[in-house]
């Protein structure tokens, strides 16, 4: 007889490429999301609209009248709810393309999904605590991510930032389709990552499969762009007078399995180029794409020109004696600068490689720890996602680590309301338990960090 404990373990790495049946890198079949006539089997498919809706969808989702479709002929209550019908799940472990734990966890439980973009349920979780000096500490849910509106899934508009920081996109209209083009007319047409868009008067290769996992276009068919991100001139139909995008999607490659605990192996998305420029489609005034040698831009650089070869203090008396890249490679944890380039990468501080060559990126994308090298080519650059998660995370400002506290770990353990010693102080725990903190760091053991770990800004700046 053999006794076991039921163990939740990560699935073995899968060697196949993920094309995913529904999107296939481009527009899916139309009636997957739309009802053309609000009629099926000669019956109305919907029973009336939600009169509590506001904003762009107030005009009436769910027509009562047979043969009269809903706004945008959508099947879902709104466009994000339509997406989350597939992309939300009540999983107990990270699973495939699920980007939201639903229903959102309660009590001391933490979100389950671990996609690189993060789990949207964090935006529903507000944490409160009291600092050691008596001040209240609050980490509001809406500060944890992009507040897409999805009424069926309890996701509501940001009540504080009413437009995109650095831009004008209205928070009330933010949806999955604000960033991802569900019809995805952009495509990668060659092995060099060249992006082309369908347009009136133009002829481009048709999209044959997903381009998110390293597939390369052939002479006959293109692949989709990374994560169906929207292309230049994208203008969301459901938003009034949107500012059309001016940048194409970034080029990047993800490993086939990317939603997993990083307790033992990190998920390395090989970001190539263009991410920050693309984020600036909505956050234009925040964006500074180049390094700032003259120290005049007064915005942290992020973009194709923000190279990690920028000079930095070598901590030996030379203000410009080394590079950001050299610090990245040397930095292991607070106080420990003995790292080596071949093993210096961390998915908590990713960067772009400065290439759009699909084969190169595909060889670097991994979920098994097979490629851990840090910057070496001289083309690497910092990007928005070096510090922020695209969807949501446990910390304010969508940051990958807690930027509101001096320490991420104290006494060799995560801070948390249930920690012993200083780690229980509200200014460190932010009101989260140690398990929730660990979840926000994708289950890395606290021993990954220093006994008293400072901000991961230091991965590039080594001020600790």
């Amino acid at each position, binding site marked *: 007889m053999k006794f076991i404990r*039921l*163990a939740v373990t990560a699935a073995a790495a899968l060697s196949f490429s993920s094309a995913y049946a529904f999107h296939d890198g481009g527009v899916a079949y139309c009636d997957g999301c739309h009802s053309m006539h609000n009629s*099926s089997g000669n019956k109305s498919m919907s029973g009336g609209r939600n009169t509590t809706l506001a904003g762009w969808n107030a005009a009436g989702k*769910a027509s009562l009248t047979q043969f009269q479709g809903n706004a945008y002929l959508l099947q879902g209550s709104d466009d994000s709810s339509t997406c989350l*019908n597939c992309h939300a799940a*009540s999983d107990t472990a990270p699973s495939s*393309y699920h980007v939201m734990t639903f229903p959102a966890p*309660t009590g001391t439980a933490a979100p389950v999904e671990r996609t690189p973009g993060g789990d949207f349920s964090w935006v529903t979780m507000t944490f409160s605590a009291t600092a050691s000096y008596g001040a209240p500490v609050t980490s509001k849910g809406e500060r944890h991510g992009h507040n897409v509106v999805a009424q069926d*899934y309890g996701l509501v508009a940001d009540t504080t930032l009413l437009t995109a920081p650095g831009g004008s996109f209205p928070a009330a209209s933010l949806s999955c389709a604000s960033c991802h083009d569900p019809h995805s007319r952009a495509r990668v047409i060659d092995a060099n990552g060249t992006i082309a868009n369908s347009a009136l008067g133009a002829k481009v290769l048709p999209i044959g499969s997903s381009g998110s996992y390293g597939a390369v276009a052939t002479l006959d068919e293109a692949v989709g762009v990374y994560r169906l991100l929207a292309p230049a001139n994208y203008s969301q139909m459901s938003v009034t007078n949107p500012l059309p995008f001016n940048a194409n999607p970034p080029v990047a490659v993800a490993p086939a399995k990317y939603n997993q605990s990083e307790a033992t192996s990190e998920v390395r998305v090989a970001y190539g180029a263009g991410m920050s420029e693309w984020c600036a489609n909505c956050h234009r005034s925040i964006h500074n794409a180049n390094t700032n040698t003259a120290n005049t831009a007064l915005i942290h650089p992020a973009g194709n020109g923000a190279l990690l070869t920028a000079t930095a203090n070598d901590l030996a008396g030379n203000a410009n004696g080394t590079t950001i890249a050299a610090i990245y490679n040397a930095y292991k944890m607070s106080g420990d600068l003995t790292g080596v380039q071949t093993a210096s990468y961390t998915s908590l501080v990713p960067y772009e490689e400065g290439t759009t060559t699909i084969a190169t990126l595909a060889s670097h994308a991994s979920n098994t720890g097979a490629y851990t090298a840090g910057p070496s080519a001289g083309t690497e650059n910092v990007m928005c996602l070096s510090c922020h998660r695209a969807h949501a995370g446990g910390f304010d400002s969508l940051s990958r680590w807690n930027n509101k506290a001096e320490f991420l770990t104290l006494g060799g353990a995560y801070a948390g309301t249930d920690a012993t010693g200083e780690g229980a102080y509200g200014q460190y725990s932010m009101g989260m338990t140690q398990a929730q903190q660990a979840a926000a760091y994708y*289950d890395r053991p606290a021993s990954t960090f220093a006994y008293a770990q400072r901000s991961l800004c230091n991965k590039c700046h080594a001020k600790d």
Partner: protein
Amino acid sequence: MTSAIAAAPAGAGAAELRAAYLFNLSDVNGAIPMSWAGLAYDRSAGELYVTDRGAGEVRVFRQSGIEVQSFGDDEALGTVTDVAIREDGELFVLALKNGRAVLERCSYRGEPLAPLALRGVPAAFAKGFAPEAIRYSGGKLYLADKAHLKVLVADTDGGVQATYDLQAKVAAEAKNRDDARMTGFAVDPSGNLLFTAGPMFRAFVVSPAGEVRGFGTRGSTPGKFNVVAGIAADERGYLYVTDLLRAVVMVFDPSLEFVGEFGYRGEAPENLIAPIDVSVGKGQVFVAQGAMRGVSVFRVEIAGPDAAGG
């Protein structure tokens, strides 16, 4: 009672589906708002166990739809994932504790009695088996690892009686292997395993001998699968399958022929939004929805050449 919209296939000799909305599961304050609850029906007592993941507790309802008790909100059991009910009322609670799935025997009140350890687990299931669902049928417990399409069958003392590794057979039908995972899972009174695979637009019936039958085709017309989720069987072998995107419950006869469907998206009481789970018993169909619409209860009657009615 409000009649629900029901569509059915045309044709002589076809069974006829009649569905009527009855009420939503409630307490003394009225209908209880919940999203994406998990459902388990106790045929012996005529009670429905609802895992309210949003509130972190298990609520128990009589056939009349009124809540009679709840448990699990103190996290003593961990985060409850699912619950199965034996004829005598003893509960088997599947929960997450410190990131691990644990199985606990509990009294009918949800009071922990003892952990249940599995015995005689074959090597292929001894490592990496991560159950997310539990069902009870015919004196056996069925534990499903949805992500890996594995089902382990045990007696109520934990002795393993059978295992099913369905990955290879189901993935053979999938356009992509990642699509081959269970969305909904159930066991019918005959011990057949029932599950849906939403991304595959398919549902499956697996006999106790391991024979796999798939059914369903992609589409958005009556009887077609868009994003299927919950699945359940009634006492006569009729299957009920929910579709998240089409917002319907589809009914299939024991030979897997489509009988009819009801629900449809909307805000009216008889409509559905994102129906994730379904359970059936004594002529009533319980449907767990999103958008805090709780659990709607329908009376369903099936009349036809080989159906005696609800």
